[in-house]
């Protein structure tokens, strides 16, 4: 039934409301049921910028303040499910967080039809994935250091607050023209220690997924996000995704080909993981160093030995031994020459969204 009456005040919209004897009252005018929320009409639409897995993002100007913001529309398609879970968790996590490397949700606004809900977020010009596709040259080592520092700060903040992101990838990292990097898309984020829910049914790229997840580990922890950061670091340096599998099996195969097939010695507990039933080809050697050269001239991306040490520590098979965000922030690579670029001197790029989409 419809719970009509005082709770449901926009009855004009569908015209089917029924009044019950107890709640019969003079017909109400349509008032904003969600009194706490501003209406999206207080924004002036500028552009549609992205259509991601979890919704559409628009750029709009706040008529009151004149500020340009990004409005992410909450997909409300499955009525039976009620307010969508991913958005619910994302909004709640982002509203409770305050960190320069985490995208800021300022408020939630509603459309005139109450079925549309938007998260108002700070507008960022670029998404790292699209930006790298458009760049001719990869980022330099100092630029990568600047980006990785911000990324690690953000991930440390998440982990300190008992949240795992679980879906870190270049398309979830935003960059503005002030050189600031911010993590977004918390639809899969979960409180650390929460019961696990397999998320294979979701369309999530596998490229950044940690081996323990690919192998079906029942327990996972903050280390899964650090693996993703390893993949992202390599990609920032080379402008190419490091491991790009289409299936879980292929993804593991790509990883094993480059890092060698793990075994019980380097990763205690490996052989007991559910996914290890499959017989993988035994690749003996770690070929990661071949992808990056300690000096220029070779044509492959440059990464010093210290930098390579960090990359290796991020891409360590055993989650127990994988480096933490805190330790990574203190890694020697960030103090070595060339120093991290300061955010103010990061290159700026024309906004991808200016091109009409």
């Amino acid at each position, binding site marked *: 039934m419809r719970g009509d009456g*005082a709770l449901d005040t926009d009855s004009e919209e569908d015209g089917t409301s029924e009044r019950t004897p107890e709640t019969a009252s003079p017909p109400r005018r349509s008032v904003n049921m969600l009194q706490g929320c501003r209406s999206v009409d207080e924004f002036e639409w500028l552009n549609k910028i992205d259509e991601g897995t979890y919704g559409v993002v628009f750029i709009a100007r706040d008529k009151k303040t004149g500020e340009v913001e990004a409005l992410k529309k909450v997909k409300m398609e499955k009525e*039976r499910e009620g307010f969508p879970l991913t958005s619910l968790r994302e909004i709640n996590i982002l509203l409770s967080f305050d960190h320069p490397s985490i995208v800021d949700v300022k408020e939630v606004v509603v459309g005139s039809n109450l079925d549309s809900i938007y998260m108002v977020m700070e507008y960022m010009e670029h998404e790292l994935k699209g930006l790298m596709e458009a760049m001719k040259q990869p980022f330099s080592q100092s630029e990568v250091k600047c980006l990785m520092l911000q990324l690690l700060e953000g991930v440390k903040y998440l982990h300190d607050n008992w949240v795992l992101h679980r879906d870190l990838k270049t398309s979830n990292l935003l960059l503005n023209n002030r050189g600031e990097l911010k993590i977004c898309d918390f639809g899969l984020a979960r409180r*650390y220690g929460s019961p696990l*829910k397999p998320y294979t049914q979701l369309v999530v790229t596998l490229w950044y997924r940690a081996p323990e997840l690919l192998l079906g580990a029942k327990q996972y922890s903050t280390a899964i996000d650090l693996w993703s950061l390893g993949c992202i670091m390599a990609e920032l340096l080379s402008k190419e995704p490091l491991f790009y599998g289409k299936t879980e099996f292929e993804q593991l195969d790509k990883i094993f080909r480059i890092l060698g097939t793990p075994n019980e010695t380097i990763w205690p507990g490996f052989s007991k993981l559910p996914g290890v039933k499959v017989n993988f080809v035994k690749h003996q050697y770690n070929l990661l160093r071949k992808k990056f050269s300690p000096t220029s001239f070779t044509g492959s991306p440059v990464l010093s030995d210290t930098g390579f040490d960090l990359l290796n520590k991020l891409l360590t098979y055993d989650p127990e031994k994988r480096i933490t965000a805190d330790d990574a922030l203190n890694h020697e690579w960030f103090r070595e020459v060339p120093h991290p670029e300061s955010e103010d001197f990061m290159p700026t790029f024309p906004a991808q969204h200016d091109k009409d989409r």
Partner: protein
Amino acid sequence: MLVSFPDPLPDLLCDEDSGTVLSEAESPGCSSDSSSPAALAIDGLLLTELVLREKDFVPGLEYASRLRGGTHQYRHQHSVSPAAREESVAWILKVHASYRFQPLTAYLSVNYMDRFLHSRCLPESDGWPMQLLSVACLSLAAKMEEPLVTSPFDLQVEGAKYMFQPRTIQRMELLVLSVLDWRLRSITPFSFLGFFALKVDPTGTFFGFLMSRATEAILSNIKDFSFLEYRPSCIATAAMLWAASAIPALSVREPGDAESWCGGLIKEEITSCYRSMEASLLRNGRRKAPKVLPQFRVTTRPGTRYSDSSPSPSSSTSSSDPHNKRRRLNFTSWTVDDKGISESEREERE
């Protein structure tokens, strides 16, 4: 006492481990905690911050006094009646148990409901709006906490008096979200439990036992609105003291001594909260057979009979409801009529 405390303690611990619901890593927590002893090693700052922010997630004292004084005047004020609240909480707990949700889910549902009622009045405080509010709050809490989420529509079981269309529930969810300013990551007593378990038992030997027993103490008291007067950290302290009282080596003689567990705790409040909790738990324990919480219901299947004399959880809680009749009405209401209130429901409401 709620659970009969077995002499060989390991048995109980073993039961929990034996695979089902409340495994250590998954025990109730909140937005900003974790519950394994190792993970709780860092506390200080986090604890202080939790205490500082906890008052933002409770309905406020005025709400509790409204409930207390409201019994006879609520109709005029469109306030909330204690009876209606109690009925809603009981229903939430039943659904919670039948879906075997985590303890935190039940607590959050009631927390959302109280915070909502604190700032908004429902058109009639003990009819269908309360039911709609309960469904919406339970649904939101489940979405925040449960790994496998049930559609809100399917939560309308266990003698729900009215059935609402998915669309109606969705709107109510939105209303609740906006009234709560979208802030669902409440700080609850569960946010503190893990820390406090290590205060009474620094070695972590009895961690699992302390957590379950304290959890049970908290859940069995959410129906009682008088606990709304205490802050989450205080409720957690009292519950942990109660849990520890079952282990002679750990029990604390003066509840007030727990004041030192973290900043912001007040001796008198702890003592008074502990006394009420103890009284109510002992009272309940005497009155009815041990109540079985979802995480311990592993062996209970619908249709299986308890071998002892204690009533099964479902029969003990639904005594007042013409359960089957309601169920049938609900069924017709959503199959026959998908727009408005069905005839049968209307009759029922008159």
